[in-house]
């Protein structure tokens, strides 16, 4: 398990390192815009700490207008998949914690982790580069001025334009870039398109309401389009405009009204009766020889009903049957188109059936034109509104194709097999982004084929042949549609995944590159370019070794690359890249080869991690550790020197001290009587001082011996230790009447008996020394088990110690009392501490002034502890 997880962990670690060390800010957000994480660089750029941002909406980092737009933008993206910056990258503005606004370059990559979508935004503060750009632009302007004034028509070298710093377009320029332009263009176009039927309708209404007969006499044919039709067409256009405008709710009543009128009319035709709506808005003139004056043609009614349904679908809330609705809208809008196209063709070919549908009323030429306009408006609306759009610029090909083929159909005698010419129409489905469009077009072809059959004059050969032909044609159309659909689907999946891969490759904030067999770069990620300071054009086609330091390139050529080719993988190879500005970047490269089916090398995919920072910190860490260990060594040495010093000095001090003491004694012994009183007093001080110094040296020696001497561990019975110490101290204990109680059950411990005796002796001596003036001295020695250790306690009823001095009593030469009060060198407890610590235990005191003191020390039960290195020569 652990081994399987290892590469993933390493990758994670690499990712982690990348996340921590990249200069670019990285912010991860979820689908709602809530910040999931941000890296230290992003914290630096925005001035927030991660904790202040994570969990909040990313909007907090945006100034207006981005702040207000972001929710809509995300919602729109979720709905339609239309993204402004995913996969590309653009310049936007950010807001720092202090409220200042700054330009930044943002590119976003979409990621899916365990089915959860998240977006990684890679951002770079452009404040500095903006200043640099401005400076560069200024110097460029001056350069131009100079050129112009000098009269030199210098051809601007291309590389100058491609130079760093001005490669990014200014923001207003970005607005004119392809995608952005298309977006606005599409909207304007759609609005214009929906305006057209309104305009046509209103013009007709105007014509109808024009006072006098002058207009009617001048252009009588335009009045073939009824007033009612004109009103309904403009209403349809209005409804579409409302949908585009985002006021879909208002389009519903419009759709309902138009649909009701058109539906009723069709019902009238079907039932062969009048529902009494015919005279409504019929206009004052009826040009048709119509059994029902004022009734519109059946095909006109069909167009209106279809449009009304489309309108209702477009206006309905988006979440309902989205997919189905898109298909329905496409089908219906192309049906409208087909009807209009057919009517026009009918007029051109002079086939009344096509524009009357066998009724006494025909769709007039103006109405047919208006129908085409309406169909375009519907398609424009649906393609913008539903954003799953038709192929750009090609949408007009199917209607023209349909018109031509239908005319061809009508022109052919008997309409023999003309329908087969709709096959190209179905193929148009290849251009459309919506997969079902090929079926929409097949349906359109089918409709036109049926109309061709219905409306072409019946031939002498009998209808069954024609019928069979047309049936075969329709079958063929749908077969082709299925084939186109299947092809599209496979191709789309492939294209999509390639696009996704390409996006991920280019925009993932990781340095990626690919090379071919000759080690020439065939692909690099944007992050690679950013980090290396190159543009894509500058690097593609050049050898990867050109971008390495000289030494690294040599190693790569001679060792790494051949081995990689032979082995097929590369793991964590260390190399040094050279940025465009010449600075080195220490990297770690891992790569795999991509091979074709025959196992030939196609290209490599390599990941590069910048380890400069990491290496630097590692190096610092190493140096620090070195320094530390050196310090430790020198500390240990100086400690030891100090101990040796203490030993040797105390030793050498003995010699002169002995002189002072001995001759002091000699003087006193022989000449005491001859000396005056004062000299005797002086002599007394001298001898006393020498004695004290002698004690001091003795204790100091004892202390240094504790750390110098090797410990010979053995099992020590503590009861016997205390007994022996009591015996040693016997003469000191008796006169003060001390009672030393030793609790039974003192344990056996592993230790150095001599040292432990010294501890007991010092503690007991202390107890005797610091006893209270009145009352007998009571000392109690006890022990209790505390886990793996034994805790010993030496309790007395002496003068006690102020707790403030609790710890200091164990320090060397630390005395709490004047020498006149209590004799001593201040070393005894320091020796105790040292001994106990060498045994791996602790020592402390619990006391209050005037209430006696209890000294505690612990000793391990067993003595697993190793003898500490004691390398002074013996």
């Amino acid at each position: 398990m652990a081994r399987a997880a290892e590469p993933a962990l390493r990758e994670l670690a690499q990712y982690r390192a990348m996340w921590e060390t990249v200069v670019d800010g990285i912010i991860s957000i979820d689908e709602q815009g809530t910040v999931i994480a941000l890296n230290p660089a992003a914290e630096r750029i925005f001035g927030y700490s991660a904790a202040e941002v994570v969990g909040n909406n990313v909007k907090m980092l945006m100034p207006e207008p981005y702040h207000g737009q972001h929710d809509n933008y995300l919602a729109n993206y979720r709905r339609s998949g239309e993204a402004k910056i995913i996969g590309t990258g653009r310049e936007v503005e950010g807001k720092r914690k202090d409220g200042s606004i700054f330009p930044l370059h943002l590119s976003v990559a979409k990621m899916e982790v365990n089915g959860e979508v998240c977006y990684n935004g890679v951002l770079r503060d452009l404040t500095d580069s903006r200043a640099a750009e401005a400076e560069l632009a200024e110097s460029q302007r001056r350069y131009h001025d100079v050129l112009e004034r000098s009269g030199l028509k210098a051809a601007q070298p291309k590389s100058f334009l491609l130079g760093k710093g001005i490669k990014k377009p200014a923001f207003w320029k970005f607005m004119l870039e392809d995608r952005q332009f298309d977006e606005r263009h599409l909207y304007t176009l759609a609005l214009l398109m929906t305006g057209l039927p309104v305009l046509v309708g209103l013009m007709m209404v105007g014509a109808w309401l024009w006072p006098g007969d002058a207009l009617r006499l001048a252009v009588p044919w335009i009045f073939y389009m009824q007033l009612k039709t004109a009103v309904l067409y403009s209403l349809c256009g209005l409804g579409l405009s409302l949908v585009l405008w985002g006021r879909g709710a208002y389009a519903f009543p419009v759709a309902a009204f138009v649909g009701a009128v058109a539906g009723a009319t069709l019902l009238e035709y079907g039932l062969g009766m009048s529902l009494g709506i015919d005279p409504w808005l019929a206009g004052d003139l009826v040009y048709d020889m119509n059994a029902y004056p004022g009734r519109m043609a059946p095909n006109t009614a069909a167009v209106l009903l279809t449009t009304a349904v489309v309108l209702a679908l477009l206006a309905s809330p988006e979440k309902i049957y989205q997919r189905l609705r898109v298909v329905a809208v496409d089908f219906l809008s192309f049906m409208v188109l087909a009807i209009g196209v057919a009517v026009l063709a009918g007029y051109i070919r002079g086939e009344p059936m096509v524009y009357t549908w066998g009724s006494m009323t025909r769709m007039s030429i103006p109405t047919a034109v208006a129908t085409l306009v309406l169909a375009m408006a519907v398609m424009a609306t649906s393609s913008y509104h539903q954003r799953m759009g038709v192929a750009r610029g090609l949408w007009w090909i199917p209607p023209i194709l349909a018109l031509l083929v239908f005319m061809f159909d009508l022109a052919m005698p008997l309409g023999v097999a003309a329908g087969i010419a709709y096959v190209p129409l179905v193929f148009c489905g290849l251009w459309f982004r919506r997969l079902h469009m090929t079926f929409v077009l097949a349906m359109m072809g089918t409709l036109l084929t049926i109309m061709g059959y219905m409306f072409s004059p019946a031939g002498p050969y009998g209808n069954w042949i024609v019928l069979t032909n047309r049936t075969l044609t329709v079958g063929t159309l749908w077969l082709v549609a299925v084939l186109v659909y299947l092809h599209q689907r496979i191709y789309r999946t492939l294209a999509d995944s390639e696009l996704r891969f390409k996006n991920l490759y280019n925009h993932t904030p990781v340095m990626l590159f690919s090379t071919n067999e000759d080690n020439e770069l065939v692909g690099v990620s944007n992050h690679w370019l950013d980090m290396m300071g190159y543009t894509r054009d500058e690097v593609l086609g050049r050898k990867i070794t050109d971008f390495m330091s000289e030494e690294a390139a040599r190693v790569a050529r001679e060792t790494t690359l051949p081995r990689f080719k032979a082995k097929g993988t590369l793991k964590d190879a260390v190399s040094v890249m050279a940025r465009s500005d010449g600075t080195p970047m220490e990297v770690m490269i891992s790569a795999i080869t991509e091979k074709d089916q025959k196992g030939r090398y196609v290209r490599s995919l390599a990941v590069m991690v910048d380890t400069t920072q990491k290496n630097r910190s590692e190096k610092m860490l190493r140096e620090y550790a070195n320094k530390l260990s050196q310090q430790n060594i020198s500390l240990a040495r100086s400690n030891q020197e100090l101990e040796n010093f203490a030993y040797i000095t105390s030793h050498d001090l003995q010699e002169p001290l002995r002189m002072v003491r001995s001759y002091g004694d000699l003087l006193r012994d022989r000449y005491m009587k001859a000396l005056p009183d004062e000299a005797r007093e002086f002599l007394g001080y001298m001898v006393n001082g020498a004695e004290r110094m002698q004690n001091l040296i003795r204790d100091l020696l004892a202390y240094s011996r504790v750390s110098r001497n090797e410990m010979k561990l053995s099992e020590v019975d503590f009861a016997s230790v205390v007994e022996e110490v009591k015996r040693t101290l016997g003469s000191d204990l008796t006169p003060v009447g001390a009672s030393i109680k030793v609790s039974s059950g003192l344990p056996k411990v592993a230790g150095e008996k001599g040292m432990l005796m010294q501890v007991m002796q010092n503690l007991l001596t202390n107890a005797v020394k610091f006893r209270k003036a009145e009352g007998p001295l009571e000392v109690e020695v006890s022990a209790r088990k505390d886990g793996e250790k034994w805790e010993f306690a030496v309790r007395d009823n002496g003068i006690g110690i102020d707790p403030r001095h609790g710890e200091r009593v164990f320090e060397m030469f630390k005395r709490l009392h004047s020498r006149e009060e209590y004799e001593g060198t201040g070393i005894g407890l320091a020796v105790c501490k040292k001994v106990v610590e060498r045994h791996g235990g602790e020592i402390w005191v619990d006391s209050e002034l005037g209430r006696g003191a209890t000294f505690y020390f612990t000793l391990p039960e067993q003595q697993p502890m190793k003898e500490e290195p004691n390398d002074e020569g013996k």
Partner: protein
Amino acid sequence: MMKVNESTAVVILLVEDNPGDVRLTQESLKKVKIINELHVAKDGVEALDFLRRQGEFADAPRPHLILLDLNMPRMGGRELLEEIKDDADLKRIPVVVLTSSEMEEDIVKSYDLHANCYITKPVGIAGFTNVVQAIDSFWFNVVELPEA
């Protein structure tokens, strides 16, 4: 066999660089009954010259006992001890290490080099005198020494 008696003077070589100690030793020996003849060498080199009757010590007597301090300039007590105990002619002369060192390693080292005994110089005149007298009475009253 030499029987030290009160009529023969005992020759002692004190190898000691500290005049104070020399004087103390002399003072202590004054109180001893045995007539003794104390010679002093300031360091190991001088002591060897004395023992081997070299240079100015051509007429030097052979000492019955050597009192040896360890820490001296030029040649210290340990080196001298080694020289003496390596010298077939001298090694039978008993050497008493009389030093202020209480170091375990000095003690061990001295006995390893065949010192005949090791004594730490006591502090205080009384202690010192006691020790010197003890040496004297032990080596010259108790112990049997070889004839030369």
